[in-house]
């Protein structure tokens, strides 16, 4: 579809950066570093490019490079899982709605509209705070439960957004002649969806999914900053939240996760944009 060499220089950089992030997310824990919660008691609040700590440490003595790698894993994992789940469920619902039409479409479209009537972050915030609440406030909610809750909430937020796009795309494609032709030849609906609708709708969805990953990364960071996401520097948002405590004397604690987050979002946005333009070009030729 797209060749790496044909991409522009900035886009190539974006692809490489995303590759690096994926590599860190998958293999980050195998790299020869101490665990990210290891405390360097002699190097508190060291600035970046110091010997032994290329990105510096924060005032608790956590090395920021290993923290950032651990944060990469958490943020990327949440983003990819939520977008994957939301995309699967959303596109299944959207394609069904547009293909079956009638009452199913009415119910599903209304459901999408209901989901879209609450601003994304407000909905995610409400879901997370409700789902993650504990009977006893003094008992800390375990990390895995917070991660689960975050993923579930962000998935629920994404379903109507991606579902509506899938529905719209399916509507335009299912009106095409080749679908009518396939139907007149006696092809079953499930076959038509599999052979004709999905391959055509998928590229648009993939382009949107890249944009959605950026949105989810930012949403996760916002939630962590508000104190309902990943606590204690476990993700980029968590690192930002922790860096906030001491931004007057060691601002680099804040800059490092912000830089990681911003470059990643720039990259996913750029890739999504390139994919979308490519699609538009193809559409124009048809």
């Amino acid at each position: 579809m797209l060749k790496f060499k044909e991409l522009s220089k900035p886009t190539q950089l974006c692809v490489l950066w995303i590759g690096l992030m994926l590599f860190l997310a998958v293999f980050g824990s195998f790299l020869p570093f101490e665990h990210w919660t290891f405390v360097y008691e002699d190097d508190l609040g060291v600035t970046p490019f110091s010997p032994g700590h290329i990105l510096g440490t924060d005032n608790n003595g956590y090395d920021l490079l290993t923290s950032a790698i651990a944060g990469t894993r958490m943020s990327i994992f949440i983003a990819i899982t939520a977008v994957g789940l939301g995309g699967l469920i959303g596109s299944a619902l959207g394609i069904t709605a547009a293909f079956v039409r009638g009452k199913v479409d009415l119910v599903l479209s209304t459901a999408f509209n209901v989901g879209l009537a609450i601003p994304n972050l407000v909905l995610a915030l409400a879901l997370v705070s409700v789902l993650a609440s504990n009977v006893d406030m003094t008992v800390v909610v375990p990390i895995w439960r917070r991660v689960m809750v975050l993923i579930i909430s962000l998935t629920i937020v994404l379903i109507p957004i991606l579902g509506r796009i899938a529905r719209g795309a399916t509507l335009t494609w299912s009106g095409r002649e080749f679908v009518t032709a396939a139907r007149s030849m006696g092809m079953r609906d499930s076959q038509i969806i599999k052979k004709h609708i999905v391959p055509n709708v998928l590229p648009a969805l993939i382009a949107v999914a890249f944009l959605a990953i950026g949105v989810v990364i930012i949403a996760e960071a916002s939630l962590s900053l508000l104190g309902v996401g990943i606590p204690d520097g476990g993700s980029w948002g968590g690192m930002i939240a922790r860096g906030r405590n001491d931004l007057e004397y060691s601002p680099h604690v804040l800059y490092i996760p912000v830089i990681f987050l911003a470059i990643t979002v720039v990259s996913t946005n750029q890739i999504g944009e390139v994919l979308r333009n490519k699609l538009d070009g193809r559409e124009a030729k048809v």
Partner: protein
Amino acid sequence: MQKLSFWLQRVSQLLVVLLLVTFGVSLLIRIIPVDLATIVMPVADETQRAAFRASIGLDKGPIGYYLQWLGNFVHGDLGNIYYSGGTETVSGHLIKAMPRSLLLMSYTQIFALGVAIPLGVLSAYRAGRRADRVISNTLFIFSSIPGFAIGLILIIIVGTKFEWLPTLGYATFSEGIWEHFKHMIMPVLSLSLGLIAQYTRLLRADMIASLREDYVTMAMSKGLSDRRILWRHVFRPSSVTLFTSAALSMGGLIGGAIVIESIFATYGVGFEIFAAIGGRQYIMLQSCVAVIALFYVFFNLVVDIGSGFVDPRTRDRRANA
């Protein structure tokens, strides 16, 4: 006549959506894994808790609870905030918080449009040249940096390093106009940079398309000045898209404002939601989310009607869709 029935249909659709949204939010309260009465009255005995549940309708099942809440909501009673010392009404808090959020959002939109319109027109006029490339690339990077990150960086540089602006709080008009704006500059900047990028890109794309139209060639051959063509013949049709998209970005703005208000302690609606979650005031959370949804849906309707009036073409397109 057909127009009227179209709008009636649209309004009734929105009403259904609103009812379903508020019902969904009230269901959220019921799926909390914690008993609400226990949170509100940690030391009370069971009869007191039962009385509390009955008073807000929690004993009546999902639909009964919703109807009671809706009845109160329509009459302006948004429930209470429960402290160990007593209660306060949510509506009282919201009446204080609402103007602040609305001001913050209006300033943001005005500032974003005020910067984006000249930038967009300039980069469309110089499309492909250096000015356009600089503007587009800079803004593309800004569009990807979340508002809270910009806000925190502003706090570091403007707030703590140079101490030009206060980093926390809100000042009312009665405390002095300049004082008021001093507290607003950083929140508005952090919220609007992303919007500026979005608007500029949109306006640029739309205007470049309009510049290719025949009537522009016609206007040029008549010898009209570039300035007049740009603003009168090209910007005007493109502005409809811009203002519609500005209105649609309201949802993201509301979400972004929650984070920004909690960073800068603006005490707007977003801050109230943040406080409601921190203090586990779930009834307040429910009412706040309902108010936001109401505002958002209503706003979209107004925009729909407005853009239909401004540009009849969108009206026809919507009616056919």
